[in-house]
Structure formats: structure tokens, C-alpha cells
């Protein structure tokens, strides 16, 4: 009884909220690129927000269920289907043994997250199930899914006891709090100035916050390379490496900024000019290479207020889903 991988998709990896707590040992955090969608998907099926989900990229996998399960997909719209019938993102559904989940054309975004009630059974490494692709550990054998893989789910649902959950799902009308609605494409991403920004020429900050940047093809889970006006370093004294975060924007000597993402190294030695606000990291993670982005400044007080609002929104959403979570709990084997 498990879930079988018929086709792996372009890049499908198990991720949770990241391998935190070991960065001082040089261990990258990894984790979901779009943590908002990851948490949303977990919430829909009644998991804790750090349960592993499957992060799928552009071309989704084909998965066959060999047991009854409750599943939800959030993030990019990659035209999901169940047994060939279109299904909707952002809605939980009950799938049965023999059902096949697959994906078609990309309609929006870059990465989607599949959550199962109970989550997949994976052996944690340093307290996280996230796949570290470069390190080759975590997730499923430290790598992306391949055809023929299979994995177990932690929770078994009894198909005979799912009537109530099924009814609740059919009548479920979620009111999505504003803080959880994805930003419309083209909306500038919010930036917090880095204390090191003073190392740059006076116009660099203005260029970064006013001009348009294109996402380079060599952008991946490690970082987004941006192509745009050169951000000139005024002071070229070599810097000593220090801690970086997801969203930190570092600028190598060529003046082209790099937004560090989930698989970034724990430390970096390039000058830093800004950080993408935490609430907008999911938005950048949904951008494709070749697309353009713009930024606008935000201060720390506003950034913290937005984070607080997002947490409140997750709690509000959890409250709406409580009856469904109870019904799913009651249907456990």
C-alpha cells in the first residue's frame, strides 16, 4: 500500500519547512521554495505545517494511489487531473486505490505542492525531511523522484468511514484571507534595504528599486540570477563570508544581483544590497526564468506587520477547516 511514481515530472522533491538548526555546521536549509503554498496544502489535508510535501516543477509527475488518501495541491496551476478529469488547486479531495494523479500544461506559476493527509513516511536527516539535492541526503534517498519509486503514507484512511469527510469536502467553501491570496503577476516584490547597501554607488539602490530585472535561465532552487542595470560596488574591499538568508540579494563583482533561495549555501562573501521581504518569497519562487520582476522598498516595521498578518490568516484558515480535520481524524485506520 503506497503511492507509486509512474512519471517523475521535471523536478519533484520532498520538502518541508527546511533543515533549520544545523546551518552552523554548513548544512543548507533547503525546504519548500514557496512555503506559503506548502503550508496551505498541508493545512487543507489537516497536517502540521512542517509535514513534508512533494514540490513539483513546471511539468508535474504522474502518481498512482494504491490506498485511499486525502490529497491537496497548492501553488502553481499545472492543470492537475485525477483519472483524466480536471481537478482544482487549493481544494482537498479524497482519492482511492487505483486513482491516478497527473498534470498537464502550465497555466500559472512554477512550483506546486502536493500534500497527503499524514504525509509521506521519510527518514529525517538532522530533523528534516527536505531533499538536499547537492548534499544527496534527505527526502527520498537525497534525490528527485524517478519513475518506479514508491513511498508510504504515515496515515491510513478507512474508505468505509470517509462519508462525513467526503460531504464536508463537497460543500467546503473556503474564504481565503487576503494575506494568503497570491500576488497578481507584475506586482513589485517588496525589498528591505541591507545595512551593506552603503557599499554600493549611490544610484544602485534606486536602480534596484525602480528598474526592471529579467530572471536568468541559470536560476534554480539555489538562487535567482537577475539581469538588469549594473549595481556598482563603490567599495571593493574583499569581504569575509557571513550568514545569508533566503531572499538575501548578493551582488558579485559583475554587478548582477542574485536572490538567494532555499538551497543556498549557509554563508556567502559577496556584498549584499537588500533582502526580499519574507512574505514575498513565495511570489519570487513562482516566477520562471525569462520573466521580469520589479521591486519596491519596504521598511522592517511594515515587513513584520505583514508577517504577523500572514500568520493570523493561516490561523483563520485553520479554524475554517477544523470540522474537516476532525472528520479525517475519525476516518483513520
Amino acid at each position, binding site marked *: 500500500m503506497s503511492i507509486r511514481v509512474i512519471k517523475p515530472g521535471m523536478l519533484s522533491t520532498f520538502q518541508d519547512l527546511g533543515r533549520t538548526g*544545523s546551518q552552523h555546521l554548513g548544512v543548507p536549509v533547503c525546504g519548500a521554495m514557496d512555503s506559503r503554498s506548502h503550508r496551505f496544502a498541508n493545512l487543507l489535508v489537516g497536517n502540521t505545517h512542517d509535514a513534508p510535501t512533494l514540490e513539483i516543477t513546471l511539468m508535474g509527475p504522474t502518481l498512482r494511489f494504491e490506498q485511499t488518501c486525502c490529497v491537496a495541491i497548492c501553488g502553481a496551476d499545472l492543470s492537475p487531473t485525477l483519472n483524466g478529469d480536471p481537478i482544482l488547486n487549493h481544494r482537498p479531495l479524497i482519492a482511492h486505490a487505483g486513482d491516478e494523479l497527473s498534470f498537464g500544461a502550465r497555466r500559472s506559476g512554477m512550483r506546486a505542492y502536493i500534500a497527503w493527509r499524514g504525509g509521506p513516511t521519510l527518514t529525517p536527516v538532522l530533523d528534516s525531511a527536505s531533499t538536499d539535492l547537492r548534499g544527496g541526503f534527505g527526502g527520498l534517498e537525497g534525490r528527485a523522484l524517478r519513475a518506479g519509486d514508491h513511498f508510504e503514507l504515515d496515515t491510513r484512511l478507512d474508505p468505509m468511514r470517509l462519508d462525513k469527510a467526503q460531504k464536508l469536502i463537497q460543500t467546503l467553501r473556503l474564504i481565503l484571507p487576503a494575506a494568503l491570496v497570491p500576488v497578481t503577476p507584475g506586482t513589485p516584490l517588496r525589498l528591505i534595504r541591507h545595512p551593506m547597501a552603503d557599499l554600493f554607488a549611490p544610484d544602485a539602490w534606486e536602480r534596484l528599486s525602480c528598474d526592471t530585472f529579467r530572471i536568468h535561465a541559470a536560476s534554480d532552487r539555489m538562487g535567482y540570477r537577475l539581469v538588469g542595470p549594473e549595481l556598482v560596488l563603490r567599495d571593493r574591499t574583499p569581504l*569575509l563570508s557571513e*550568514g545569508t538568508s533566503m531572499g538575501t540579494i548578493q551582488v558579485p563583482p559583475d554587478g548582477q544581483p542574485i536572490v538567494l533561495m532555499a538551497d543556498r549555501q549557509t554563508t556567502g562573501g559577496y556584498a549584499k544590497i537588500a533582502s526580499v521581504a519574507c512574505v514575498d518569497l513565495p511570489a519570487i519562487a513562482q516566477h520562471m526564468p525569462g520573466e521580469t520582476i520589479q521591486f519596491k522598498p519596504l521598511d522592517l516595521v511594515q515587513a513584520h506587520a505583514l508577517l504577523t498578518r500572514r500568520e493570523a490568516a493561516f490561523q483563520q484558515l485553520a479554524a475554517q477547516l477544523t470540522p474537516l480535520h476532525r472528520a479525517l481524524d475519525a476516518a483513520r485506520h
Partner: protein
Amino acid sequence: MRAWTIEPQGDTSLIIRLGEGLDTDICRRCAHLAEELRRAALSGVTDIVPAFNSVTLHISPSLDDALSSREGLLHDIDERIAAALARPLAEHAYRVIDIPVCYGGEYGPDLAELAQHCNLDEQAVIAAHSTAAAWVLMLGFAPGAPYVGIHDPLFDLPRRATPRTHVPRGSVAVAARQTIIYPQDSPGGWHIIGRTPLRMFDPLRPSPALLAPGDCLRFVPISPEAFVREQAAS
């Protein structure tokens, strides 16, 4: 004047800086401070990352209380830094770890060139590298990968002009008065002078990383036979 600064990096991390430049004592101070802050189990702080002259604190973005009590956190950190810096460096405990290294030959292809560059014979370079105790300054660039130093000025070399595309796991390499040990096969631009049979990182071990910031290392020269034997044993 205070000997440190605390600056925000984005909305989810803070960088504490304890000084300027590359200096063993500042670096050890950072490692000890990171340990003290870790022991304090600060609410909402997920990672405490010491580097050459800084300690970065990562704060969970999904904890309401951590955000709303940012002022309290800053105050708390400030007091702990003051207390940690008030103690003489000699009072801080550290681990001493022996790192067996097979120098030169096929395991250290750059040793001969380095010796030539310094006008020394290979044995003198090995002695310079292995006699003085060295400190784990920080870990970075890969899981479990240490930066070790600060060595004798004779190891003040720039990196190789052309990085190698393949450096074997365990390679011990020098540049800029520091040593790095490659935890896995990877590309690399440092001068390889030897190889250790020890594994810097093994995700299947209870403690995957062998070394931690602030450890004191002693490089112990071993023969190729001992290398093969110890590698088989680990």
C-alpha cells in the same frame, strides 16, 4: 564604545559583528558566543551561525511571538554578548580533535609546487602545517566543510588560477592562511596538500558533522598505508 554591532538582515535574521578583519581571536569569540546563544534557547531563533567575525541569528518567520518580542530579543542578546565578551577567551572550553592527514604524493598533488613556491622542502611545509594547533574558524560551502586557521604566513597563497573540476572527498587544501577539508567530491580551487581518511559529514551518523566552529585541530601526518587502513576502518 561597544565592541559589537547588531544589524537586521531582511526581516528574518540579525547579524552580530564582533570586529573587523581576519583574526583568530575574533573568530573564536564568534564561535563561543554562538554556543552561548544556542544554550540560551532563545524563543523563535532557529539557527545561530558563527562566521569569521560575525554571528547570524535566523528567526522563524512563522512564530508570532518571536516577531512581536523583537525588542525583547535584541535586549536579551545584547546582555548575553556583553557577558560572553567579558569572560577571557582562555576560559571558554573547546574540543581538541586530531585530523590524520596523508600529505603529498597522489593524495596531495599540490604539495611539491607549494614547497617550491616557499623555497622549502616538502617535510618543512608538512611540519609547518601540522605542528601548530589550528582552529575551526567556521563551517560553510558544503555540509560539514570547515575553514581552519589561521596558519603561518607561508600559507598566504591566492587560490589556484584554474579551479579543479574534481577534488576527492577528504582532500586537505590551503589558501589565504587557511585550510579547508572537502567533505564530498566536488570542484575546488584551493591547493591540495593531503587527504584525511576521516569523513567530515555523514548524514547517517547520529552527529553528521565531525567538526564544529571553535574546535581546535591538530593535523597528524600519516603514511599512505595508514591512510588506506583508516579509510577502510571508517
